[in-house]
């Protein structure tokens, strides 16, 4: 079953001064099945962040459409967009985007508070989640008191707590050391095992190797994709590296 569909997505950035715009996305097409864990890989400037921003409803496409569960994202009214983002999407950012004035607990609860859920409901959702992410002892700490890996785990908890349809992760391991990265990817992989759909943008072949499918994007177009199938991450990483190598050669 197609869960999310990206159709003929095109994005042109126009600056105020220049009449000619920059084409960030040319014609992106792909679909996501429910429960898939997809990585989007590409070099800087390939358009992967633009793609993610459009799927996140943080940016609008120039042409084309994104459907999530048969809902066209561009058709969602401005007033509803925040609610949609809060309830249907979960975000994990490269620089965590945790708020320093909230404890980790409050940071994680933020989307639920904004949805006006009751305190019991919130705490009920919080407890198993943070136990699974192994940050239950840090709930009363502030973001500046914990390590990067712990911050990112809290961010993942914040993304998961609303039971979103899809998790959108933007370079989640970008600011982490290798050990924390691995730990985080294991967590995401575990989340995926439990049926969560995830779309991740990343530079790192190692991070991508935890996903079930990798899309390669270049010059605003998806030019290649590989499935992991039954491969172990360690084997999958070789295929990814090879694909990357081919693509860099191809682009020369």
């Amino acid at each position, binding site marked *: 079953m197609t869960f999310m569909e990206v159709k003929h997505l095109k994005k042109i950035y126009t600056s105020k001064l220049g009449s000619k715009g920059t084409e960030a996305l040319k014609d992106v097409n792909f679909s996501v099945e429910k429960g898939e864990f997809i990585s989007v890989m590409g070099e800087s400037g390939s358009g992967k962040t633009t793609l993610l921003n459009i799927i996140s409803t943080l940016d609008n496409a120039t042409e084309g459409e994104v459907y999530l569960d048969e809902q066209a994202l561009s058709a969602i009214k401005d007033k509803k*967009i925040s609610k949609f*983002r809060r309830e249907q*999407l979960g975000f994990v950012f490269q620089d965590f985007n945790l708020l320093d004035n909230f404890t980790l607990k*409050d940071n994680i609860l933020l989307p639920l508070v904004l949805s006006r859920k009751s305190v019991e409901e919130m705490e009920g959702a919080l407890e198993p989640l943070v136990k699974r992410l192994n940050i239950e002892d840090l709930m009363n700490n502030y973001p500046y008191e914990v390590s990067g890996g712990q911050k990112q785990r809290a961010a993942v908890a914040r993304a998961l707590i609303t039971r979103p349809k899809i998790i959108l992760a933007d370079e989640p391991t970008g600011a982490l050391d290798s050990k924390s990265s691995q730990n985080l990817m294991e967590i995401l992989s575990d989340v995926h095992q439990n049926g969560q759909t995830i779309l991740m943008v990343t530079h790192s072949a190692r991070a991508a190797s935890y996903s079930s499918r990798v899309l390669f994007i270049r010059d605003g177009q998806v030019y290649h994709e590989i499935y992991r199938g039954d491969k172990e991450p360690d084997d999958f990483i070789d295929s990814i590296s090879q694909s990357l190598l081919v693509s860099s050669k191809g682009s020369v």
Partner: protein
Amino acid sequence: MKNSFFTKMAWRNIQSNGKLYMPYVISAVLSVALFQMMASLMTNDFVRQRSVTLPTLFGMGTVVIGLFSLIFIFYINSFLMKRRKKEVGLYSVLGLEKRHVANILIIESLILSGASIFVGILTGIVFGRLNFLILNYLLRLPDAMSYSTSWKMTGITVLLFTGIFTLTLIYNIIQVTLSNPIRLLKGSKEGEKEPKSSPILFVIGLLSLGAGYYISLTIDNPISVLNQFFVAVLLVIIGTYLLFTAGSIIVLKALKRNKVFYYKPGPFISISGMLYRMKQHAAGLANISILSVMVIIAVSTTITLYAGTEETLENRFPEENNLTIRTDENMGSRELEETVNTIQDDLKSLSSNKGYKMTDQYFYRYTTLFGKLKDKEIVFGNFNFTSDAPTMVMIIPLEDYNQLSNKSIELNDHELLYHKSDEKLKGDTLTLFETTYDLREINQMPENLIGSNNIVDTLLLVTPDNSTLDTFLNHHNNAFPQRPNSLTADIYWSLKDDQTDEAYSGLIQERLREADYPVETAYESRDANRAEWYSINGGFLFIGIFLGGLFTIGAILITYYKQISEGYEDRNRIQIMQKVGLDKKTTKQATKAQVFWMFSLPIFTAAIHTAFAYPIVQKLLVLFNIYNNKLFLGITVGVVLIYSLIYWIIYRVTTKKYLNIVE
């Protein structure tokens, strides 16, 4: 590297960071101008002639403003540096050594502080003069005030602010040198520790505030008001600071612990936001509160003084003309009465000869002794007035009392009438000079006596006859021959249709000089005093409004800066929350609630302070012969309302700026 390079660099920084520097420079300029004007006022001839205590008061005010300036400039500097750390970090990364960075900072600071001081002094000079011109025009006082810029004080201003700016520069350089480039690069994003709640400071604050309020509420003796007023003010200032810093955090944390209340979008965002910034902003809020109280009190008391001038005159001079007659200790009350009658007849015939018609002519005789009440006895003697004020005892004969109060009370030989405004005497007998009398209380002091007896709580005694009064006086003079007391008589009269004028006063004074009465005479007319009182009270009004203006500018400055700096701090937070799903409407609600509380807290505090200051200030006014509580209350309420309106306008304007920054 050459200095010209650094200069260019510094100059370019200032230009490209205009948005950050503009509020900084404006605030610094106004601080300098405020201080310069306040200090100049201290040495101003106009102020010095007004009253002996005023320069001292202004000296205190100047010190307070100086301290405010120091705190305030440090506050805006730290805000500036926080935002600029990234830039400084970048320099280091690009290869500038720390001393090079320091060089840039020094040159920047030279330009900025030099400009601020120069423009500030200029503003002070121009604004001070302009203010005086406008106020002179508006108030149209009998004699115009002159404003002179004191060059000595201007010099002190320059020195002080050079000092303050140097301190901030040193602080900045130390900050930059101590931290490494990476930390600097992340500087403006670095988290700040959550403020700790400190119950001890909170309790001290409560006690201090309570003590200040208590002094104000319980003060009954206007003479000691002046000393205690400053103690009370100091206690309230300390209390305000502590309550804002410690109390706000305790309250916010308590709210946070209430889960059902806290975990809702509005409170969630605003409480955490306020808690996060309280550490830096509590002092700012306390400053605004205190400045606001100062504005309200300065303006409302001086307006009351001015508006109550006519009343003051009527209290001091119940009739248009007042002649006080002093005898020596050998003259008895009977003899004094005869003399008074002679003088009254003389004045009457003189007046009617010159075509004036006297009305309401009356007099009363009295003597004033200082004694101490001990249970049912009064002991007279020498007292130390400063530490332990004795009771003033005013004694008048029944005959004169009945005439004054239009009554026909009769007393037998061992009875006395008494009145004491602040307390009832214990028991129904009183012993003086070893004779015991039965007491009867009078409910109301005759109106003519209120004016001269309100400052100190006087014990009024009415003797059954003249001889009793003479006996008391003789007893007293025998006991203290080195400080004999004598009788006084006050004669009052008005003329038909308020005819008393300079010509009439001159006539009376001439007659008093020429006639050879066996007593001392002192003549005063209400009319002649009117111009002088209006000039004095007008001067106070002038100073009050000037000060009110200065303090208002101070409050506006802090508010403006707070809003802008908070806007920049909150922008990042709000953006993150919007990414996670905070909608615009909730953003607006939450930020508005937050801004509203940050705004209304100081004005509420100011209003409460004013309410509690009311009794002590009212006693202060009594010293200036203002007894009209309704007038003072009305004016105070009016001033509070007008000030709130001004504050509300500032709030609207700065909130707009804040929301613009945040969104």
